[in-house]
């Protein structure tokens, strides 16, 4: 194994160890979507009539509809949680250790992003397993087919978290950003209701939702679970991932961004 991959291995292993030491975080990450699935969806089912839209070929229950959105929700919260821990690392000093490694900074950041994404994906599969135990199942092969979409979605949202962490000066500022990023992204997407439903209320809101990369992460996951590819969603997610990663690498450039303001 070359040094480049050894460093990747070490960073990813540390993410795992960090995760193992934070069992509360794992439970919270699971409870959140399960509350939406088992309580919110049960109450909301009667209020929202769904027509047959791709990738579905028949009427589905509301619980089935929101599962992909809740998978993406796990990725979203984990991406933000990971960036929160980056800000914490920076305040606590351990980020310095990572950034003074002789390996290229972009590689160190990408390794950390991959580590966080792998953990997010494991949490999504745990969520899907619990949902299946409650009778909310997907096509069998869909569980495998969704893996690349989950990884891509995790990278995109983790990349967004990296961008935010590079521009947030202090931990205290993070709560505000969470409110201005997580909730708008989640609610202005197709996670909880299809966009045509949104258009009935407000065409403008629907247009905003259509510009939200999170919408496309949800749709990419939704189509993959039904063994289909939504090419538009794929293009959006891949493009957004590149943009977020490029911005994060720029933000962590020692000649500008984060460290120039906070040493």
């Amino acid at each position, binding site marked *: 194994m070359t040094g480049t991959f050894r460093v990747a291995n*070490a960073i990813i292993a540390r993410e795992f160890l960090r995760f193992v030491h934070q069992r509360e975080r794992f439970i919270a990450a699971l409870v959140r979507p399960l509350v939406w699935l088992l309580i919110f969806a049960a109450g909301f089912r009667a209020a929202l009539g769904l027509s047959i839209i791709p990738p579905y070929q028949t009427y589905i229950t509301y619980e089935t509809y929101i599962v992909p959105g809740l998978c993406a929700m796990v990725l979203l919260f984990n991406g933000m949680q990971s960036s929160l821990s980056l800000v914490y690392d920076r305040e606590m000093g351990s980020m310095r250790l990572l950034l003074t490694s002789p390996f290229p900074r972009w590689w160190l950041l990408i390794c950390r992003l991959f580590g966080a994404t792998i953990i997010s994906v494991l949490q999504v599969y745990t969520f899907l397993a619990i949902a299946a135990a409650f009778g909310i199942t997907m096509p069998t092969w869909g569980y495998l087919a969704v893996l690349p979409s989950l990884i891509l979605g995790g990278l995109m949202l983790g990349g967004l978290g990296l961008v935010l962490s590079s521009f947030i000066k202090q931990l205290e500022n993070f709560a505000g950003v969470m409110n201005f990023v997580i909730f708008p992204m989640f609610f202005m997407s197709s996670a909880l209701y299809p966009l045509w439903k949104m258009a009935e209320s407000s065409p403008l809101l629907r247009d905003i939702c259509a510009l939200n990369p999170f919408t496309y992460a949800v749709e990419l996951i939704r189509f993959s679970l039904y063994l289909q590819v939504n090419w538009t969603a794929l293009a959006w997610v891949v493009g957004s991932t590149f943009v977020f990663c490029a911005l994060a690498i720029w933000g962590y450039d*020692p000649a500008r961004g984060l460290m120039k303001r906070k040493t």
Partner: protein
Amino acid sequence: MTTGLTVNDLSFHYGAKQALDDVVFDVAPGTFCALLGPNGAGKSTLIALLTRLLVAPQGEITVAGHDMRRESRRALGKLGVVFQQSTLDLNLSVRQNLAYFAALQGLPKSEIPGRIDAALDQLDMRHRAEEKARDLNGGHRRRTELARSLIHDPHVLLLDEPTVGLDAASRQGITDHVHDLARTGLCVLWTTHLTDEVRDGDDLVVLHKGRIIHRGTAGAARGDQTLSDWFLSRTGEVA
């Protein structure tokens, strides 16, 4: 080309605030150089530049003959750092902390256990290797960080106020040990605002308001005064 540390014409500013102004000094191998300066003198900014957490628009830093701008990877690979703020992962054991750092340096996996044992032996910390960092006292955490900074055989060792928050015995122990390391040929830059950590034979660089105001040996600088009095007379601030 020197194998130690050289800093030439280094300037840096945060917006309109000048943090470092035309800083020039060098530290030869086998030398303990104390960088003395009051709080706010620019010591932490200098350390951030020396470790490439920041990049200065002007000036040059060379570590073991490698330019920090053009050959940053090689320069960082020759550098051992102990930051002022602890950078240990408290949930990991001493050995896990060192292993993580060794991997960040790209050391071959087969060499890592031996290097960890050797580094811990140097600091008399091997018997604590399996303990979590959280369970160590401040002095032992510092020793762990010092052991970690040596694991990849650096040529230059930077320590940013490494004794802050330690009791007198731990301070003395760490200071003595790093002086011993310098005698083995390591180039040491030790930033501090505590004059009692500096010995007469040490090189002394005084940084005040972002400028170097004195370079020489500590003994020659202080003459018949205490270093603290001499420092007060030069800077108007108590060290």
